[in-house]
């Protein structure tokens, strides 16, 4: 039986690639900074005046995706072994519409937007990336989460035959990779379900066919290649917290004042970085998105809830 699937919406169909390059030139040239850009407010929130878009080849070749190996170059080398079509997603937990859905059916009819976000890894390097994606709140709304849904938990594909990092004997990670958000974080307008970058379809090494992007949190929160969405009443136990709770918390908000046991978080290396110009810059609270998200954590001790 032949089932014809609807064509996947390509990022490039929505925003021509030239628009990026024009904007890139504009960003470089504009002394007035990004405030003068004719983009919707949300697309440039948090960006600083001197932020420049990181070259695409860095974003697609320098990745942490331990399912394909712990080296930064492993995902670009091996992620092509992962089948992303067909792709189904299981929705479960505290919602009215649960079950297993085809990825295409979930995103069908939803608008893909372009967002330029700062991206800060817990390892103290950072990038600026033009993502294409759908606000997570629009994705989640169609499943009609109930009042009991306080958190949402995501799971990455577990398929050792196609993800060589999951076969590793000397790995201490308990696959599949799990991440989660509080409902108010998940439905925040900045939180994006990414399906593309630089106007193109999302490459496997960046988490195809879709991945999360929470710009005010450390990169490990932005889980890739998602196959499960679960609405829960209790806080999910995310993979890195499970592995090393003293180092990685549930919230993982970018915070220069709270030092990670392995790395100082006071500053970051902005890629591209070179031996001759490290491009080090101070790290901003909530990665520069404090105006938009700080209120979510009002009254919380961010040293305790790191």
């Amino acid at each position: 039986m032949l089932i014809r699937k609807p064509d996947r919406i390509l990022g490039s169909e929505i925003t021509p690639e030239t628009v990026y390059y024009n904007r890139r030139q504009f960003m470089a040239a504009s002394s007035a900074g990004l405030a003068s850009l004719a983009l919707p407010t949300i697309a440039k929130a948090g960006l600083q005046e001197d932020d420049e878009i990181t070259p695409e080849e860095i974003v697609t070749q320098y990745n942490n995706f331990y399912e394909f190996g712990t080296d930064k170059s492993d995902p670009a080398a091996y992620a092509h072994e992962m089948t992303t079509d067909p792709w189904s997603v299981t929705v479960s937990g505290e919602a009215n519409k649960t079950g297993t859905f085809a990825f295409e059916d979930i995103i069908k009819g939803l608008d893909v937007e372009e967002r330029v976000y700062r991206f800060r890894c817990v390892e103290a390097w950072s990038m600026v990336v033009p993502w294409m994606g759908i606000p997570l709140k629009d994705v989640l709304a169609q499943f009609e989460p109930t009042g009991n849904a306080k958190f949402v938990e995501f799971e990455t594909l577990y398929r050792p035959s196609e993800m060589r990092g999951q076969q590793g004997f000397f790995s201490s990670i308990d696959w599949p990779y799990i991440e989660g958000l509080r409902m108010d974080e998940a439905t925040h307008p900045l939180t994006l379900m990414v399906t593309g970058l630089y106007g193109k379809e999302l490459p496997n090494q960046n988490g195809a066919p879709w991945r999360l992007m929470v710009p005010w949190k450390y990169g490990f929160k932005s889980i890739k290649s998602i196959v499960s969405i679960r609405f829960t009443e209790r806080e999910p136990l995310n993979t890195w917290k499970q592995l090393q709770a003293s180092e990685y918390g549930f919230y993982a908000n970018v915070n220069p004042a709270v030092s990670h046991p392995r790395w100082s978080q006071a500053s970051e290396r902005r890629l591209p970085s070179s031996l001759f110009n490290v491009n080090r810059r101070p790290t901003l609270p909530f990665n520069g998105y404090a105006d938009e998200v700080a209120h979510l954590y009002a009254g919380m001790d961010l040293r305790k809830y790191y």
Partner: protein
Amino acid sequence: MLRQFAKPTLACALLLPWAWLAYAIYLETQQTGSGLGADPVEGLLHYLGEWGMIVLLCAFSVTPLSRRLSWPWLIRSRRMVGLFAFALVAVHAAVFAVFYAQLKWQILLQEVTERPYITLGMASLVILSLLALTSTRNWQRRLGSTWKRLHRWVYLAVPLALLHLLWLRKDGYEDLVVYTLWATVLGAERLYAWRVQQARAVITSS
């Protein structure tokens, strides 16, 4: 043949990590990221650390190898291998001081005291510096029997370096398993050789 060419051959082999590094830095001057990866500072730091570990284990292997193979002349290359290891480790630490601590001693002090893996790495470096400093014939003569005792501190420097790597690693321990096994075999050989020597001493004295 082997005897004459051992040292120059070893020297050439030990220069290879530096030759590759020089080439990578040349590539970096041409285009950022082409030699040491998208985060070249991190690439440089890890490259030197990884090779420092390997060459340190090579230096640690010289005595057991010369004993097992009955190649007493191999010992004459031991200092050279050790100094190559020290050079890699010292530049590794210098890269950290320059690019990470930004040559600010407050940051450096904070890093060394707050991050246990850096504390351990630094302790290992201090030991290796002492050993490198006193590796000359002159110091060997001056220290007499103390020299041998001093240089036994390498038995601490190696595990400290291994712990340093273990502590900073997030996941993926393949290389670390190899290094640990390697060091354990060498340690066991030394222990065995020492026990044999003890037994012989007992036999000859009775």
